[in-house]
């Protein structure tokens, strides 16, 4: 065939084919693994955090193309952000950065947000001294 037809737009396809930040971080400061009850996808994000800032992020994903692309994009986006900034991270950023996702696949970006927040929560749990600064559980529940 002369033309190439893809299920997702070219940005999503690019992140699916060549995911950024794929893998695990040795000695991660925070690790979050979440599953989507709806479709069964599982996403794991590990973070390297120092001085209240996300220095590095990695993901592993069991899921569809858009789940992989969403985790790739989410890890790209959050690198360099402060914990507070990251706590306010929303799946819409992923969707926008990816140039849109099919409606039925929006939940993949939500999963990425959740995995990130679970990782942050994990980090906060290990650092109780930060608890008063960022009410992680509330933010996560939002």
């Amino acid at each position, binding site marked *: 065939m002369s033309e190439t037809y893809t299920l997702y737009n070219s940005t999503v396809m690019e992140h*699916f084919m060549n995911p950024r930040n794929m893998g695990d971080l040795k000695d991660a400061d925070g690790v979050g693994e*979440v599953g989507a009850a709806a479709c069964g996808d599982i996403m*794991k994000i590990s973070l390297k955090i120092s001085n209240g800032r996300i220095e590095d992020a990695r993901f*592993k*994903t*069991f899921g569809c193309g858009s789940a992989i692309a969403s985790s790739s994009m989410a890890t790209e986006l959050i690198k360099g952000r402060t914990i507070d900034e990251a706590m306010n991270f929303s799946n819409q950023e992923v969707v926008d950065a990816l140039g849109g996702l099919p409606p039925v696949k929006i939940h993949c970006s939500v999963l990425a947000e959740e995995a990130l927040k679970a990782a942050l929560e994990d980090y906060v749990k290990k650092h109780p001294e930060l608890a008063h600064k960022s009410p992680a559980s509330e933010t996560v529940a*939002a």
Partner: protein
Amino acid sequence: MRQVYLDHQASTPVLPEVFDAMKPYFTEAFGNASSLHQHGLRVREALKRSRGQMAALINADSAEEIFFTSDGTESANLAIKGVAYANERRGKHLVVSATEHPSVMQSVEFLERQGWTCTRVPVDADGTLQLEALRAAIRPETVLVAVHHVNHDIGTIQPIREVGRVCAETGVPLYVDCEASAGWLPVDVREFGAAMVSFSPHRFYGPKGVGVLYRNKKARLVSVIHGGVQEGGRRAGTENIPAIVGGGMAAEISLTELPRRIAHTATLQSRLWKGLKERIPYIRLNGPEPGPRRISTNLNLSTEFIEGEGQLLLCDLNGIAVASGSSCVSKSLKISHVLAAIGLDHALAQGNIIMTLGMANTVEDVDYTLETFAKIVTKLRGMSPMWDEFQRGVIDSVIAPTGRGKSFSQHAADVSGKAAH
């Protein structure tokens, strides 16, 4: 890049002979079969010829037992609802296998909303209908039994002769959905003892836009698409003549070519499955082993620790067209109900890939697929937290349990519980 089409279950290209047969009916012989003049009469002849070709494919007594619809879905709707409505006064109970196609299942659910009841007969782990359960399901008020010939997802060949015998004993008409078998496996309505059989030419190198419903006089049937008196009053609407003509030609060719089709696909099927088993650990075939209980075109696979859509997309990027019954590829986010009915572990259902072979596939295609698919699985497992957790003994394999770690499903439930929504 090599192009390997392994989705013959979804659709097939129209054969050149079929297309040639259709061509005049678009432009030159464009008449409406209801017209009484030359243009109408000419296409009536064509309709009749096609009916004969369809009847021959399934060994029907007469061309008059063939009704044309728009597709396999409509044929199933007509068979189910047409019989239900026709027998409303006799009884309002239906029996279907648990692994019928959605066109049967959804027709039944529609009738249930209108006051009918339906028993879904379970299948075993290979997807084979449980005959004793079928027998037990049939009641005096049962007006129809629906059991497909071959399962569209997992390729299981049902014991239709036995099903037909049970139906004959109980006097209930049997409808056999042959959409996944016609053109690839002999279909014999008499041997089946079937009152109705449906199939669709686009699955055996015929065109889209036409479905077939065979009905012998055993089954009372009323129309479900109402209007004019086309198709003996059983299906209103202007007949899609080019598709009917092409479908008839495809049926005729299929009948002749059947032994060659079976031989060709069976060879590739066994090479493909053997190769996959050899190269890829933790892969499983759903449905029966290749052989007399499985159609020769279908391989339904579960690749553990990775999800189906990713496999499908990477196959596609490498020129290989496959399908999947995983929840991610369905708009409803549900795994195929067939995989649920055979009790497949959710983890394996998620990793589902369906490869269906056809006549254009070659040994080279198979070898390319083996090589490519193995790489894809490696790549995706490399990305999968489950594969890593399996390596680390956190979770266990369903396909080849090591005895270490919790189940994938347990783990998935645990992490899903963590989810914020």
